[in-house]
């Protein structure tokens, strides 16, 4: 039965990768504990509930693949990503080289960049999607991320389709400095193009969502939706704390606070989002 022993660590590793598991105290294999309430959850059930804890409604962090799985009709999704050569125009090096950080991110995530674009169906309705991968360099936006987002919009305009973007990002990518800063302009200009074509853009803010991504494409949706308890803001909490030197309110930069202040239209549970999209797409078509 040696093959089982060999397999178990693999299965465990696979689940840890997909669900961002920390060393859980849960029996190996098909179970994992909720990061928030600690409940032991059966993974096939967790998948069925869109990676939302059945006990406390905690929305697990999910990768692009899982986002596709919980959002689109089965087998309807087609990848629109074009292959991009890695470019390090600044020859950037901090404590590590950018190219090394980049290859590590590729290995860690099985994504080739911090965003993936595609075309699929939600309850039979065709949509174009852009999905950020937070584990890829913090979901940061560099040249390729901006380019892909703009390509998703071009595709949407050409095919007269709505766009849905799931944003989770630390902001602009430091290692591409001004090139990344100007992606804010690129994505904002692209959104404007989509709006002029009168095609709907639904922006979904996923934990965490900050900086140059909120301050461009993510806050420009016709509808701006947030997942419950997602952290959403412009400046990072630590920077603000260092500046104002006082305790920050408990609900500071939460989806719920954003709703209260009028910056998101609605907080939608991940389990209900397909139904929400369906309804809105009928109305906005």
């Amino acid at each position: 039965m040696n093959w089982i022993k060999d397999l178990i660590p693999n299965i465990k590793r696979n689940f840890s990768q997909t669900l961002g598991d920390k060393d859980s105290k849960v029996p190996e294999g098909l179970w994992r504990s909720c990061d928030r309430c600690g409940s032991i959850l059966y993974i096939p059930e967790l998948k069925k509930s869109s990676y939302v804890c059945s006990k406390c409604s905690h929305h697990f962090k999910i990768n692009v693949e899982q986002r596709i799985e919980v959002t689109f009709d089965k087998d309807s999704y087609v990848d629109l990503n074009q292959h991009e050569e890695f470019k390090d125009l600044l020859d950037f090096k901090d404590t590590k080289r950018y190219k090394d950080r980049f290859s590590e991110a590729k290995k860690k995530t099985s994504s080739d960049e911090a965003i993936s674009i595609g075309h699929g169906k939600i309850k039979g309705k065709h949509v174009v999607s852009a999905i950020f991968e937070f584990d890829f360099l913090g979901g940061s936006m560099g040249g390729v991320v901006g380019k892909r987002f703009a390509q998703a919009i071009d595709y949407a305009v050409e095919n007269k389709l709505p766009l849905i973007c799931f944003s989770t990002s630390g902001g602009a990518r430091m290692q591409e400095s001004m090139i990344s800063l100007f992606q804010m302009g690129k994505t904002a200009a692209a959104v404007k193009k989509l709006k002029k074509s009168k095609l709907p853009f639904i922006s979904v803010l996923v934990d965490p969502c900050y900086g140059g991504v909120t301050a461009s494409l993510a806050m420009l949706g016709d509808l701006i939706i947030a997942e419950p308890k997602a952290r959403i803001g412009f400046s990072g909490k630590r920077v603000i704390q260092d500046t104002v030197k006082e305790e920050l309110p408990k609900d500071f930069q939460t989806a719920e606070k954003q709703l209260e202040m009028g910056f998101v239209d609605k907080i939608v549970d991940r389990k209900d989002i397909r139904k929400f999209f369906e309804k809105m797409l009928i109305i906005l078509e």
Partner: protein
Amino acid sequence: MMDQHLDFEQPIYTCLEKIEELKKAVPAPENLSGQLNQLQIEAEKETAKIYKNLSPWQKVLVARHPNRPHTIDYINNVFDGFEELHGDRLGDDDKAIVGGMAFLDEYPVVVIGHEKGRETEERVARNFGMPHPSGFRKANRLMELAEKFSLPLITLIDTPGAYPGVKAEHSGQHEAIAKSLEVMSDLRTPIVNLVIGEGGSGGGFGIGLADTVAMLEYSIYSVASPEACASILWRTTENAEQAAEALKLDASNLIKLEVIDKVVNEPVGGAHRNHQETYQIVKDFFLNELLALSKISLDDLTAKRYEKFMKIGS
């Protein structure tokens, strides 16, 4: 104005001190004027030499030099008859961004820029040039006026960044910057942008999406200030100098990377050394740019602006 010199400028000041000493010397040395001339030439040579070889970090220090002209200085010396217009029409007037209408020679324009303030009290009132959302919203309102009345738009960037505070977050710093970029991306009037000092992050670029994106020779522009970048990537602000190198934040690097369109040369030794000459250079630059842009139809102008930003980083 107080003469504040930077460490690396010491050789220049050594020459200037010698000049002062010579002038005061009793009895006056023989051939005083010849010697003074010689020292003056030496000082100029030193200045040119030092400023030709500034490191990125030294450029950061020049960009933040206390005697460097600010937005209000350009407004008062490059333009005529500036009329400041206040408020975002939503309940606030952010003093970190000033804007209004003015004449550039005989041409009416809308001009908007970050203002850091000079004396302590003013600097506090202007929040050191770090805008709240209301600053971007005021700017947007003025941009839309520019479009409506066919006035070219000139924006000046000089900010460490958008203000990271509780009120700023609660009133939507993210939304305000995003909206500003969206508005500028399709504004149907020529836009010329000049970074005059510090171009810090989204707070800077928030008014910078333009047909001509230019930087003064010794200004800086980056995704985060070198201190913030160092604190994120090195976990300490002590590496700010290295971060400044890595970020390629100076005009000469950014033009090579084709991120900006133009570099506007400063007088020898930097804008802080010769304000009047700087104003003249900047005025000529704006006039030339507006003349060139005014020849392009509005459809072509916005299409070109769109294409330009699509090209960056692809």
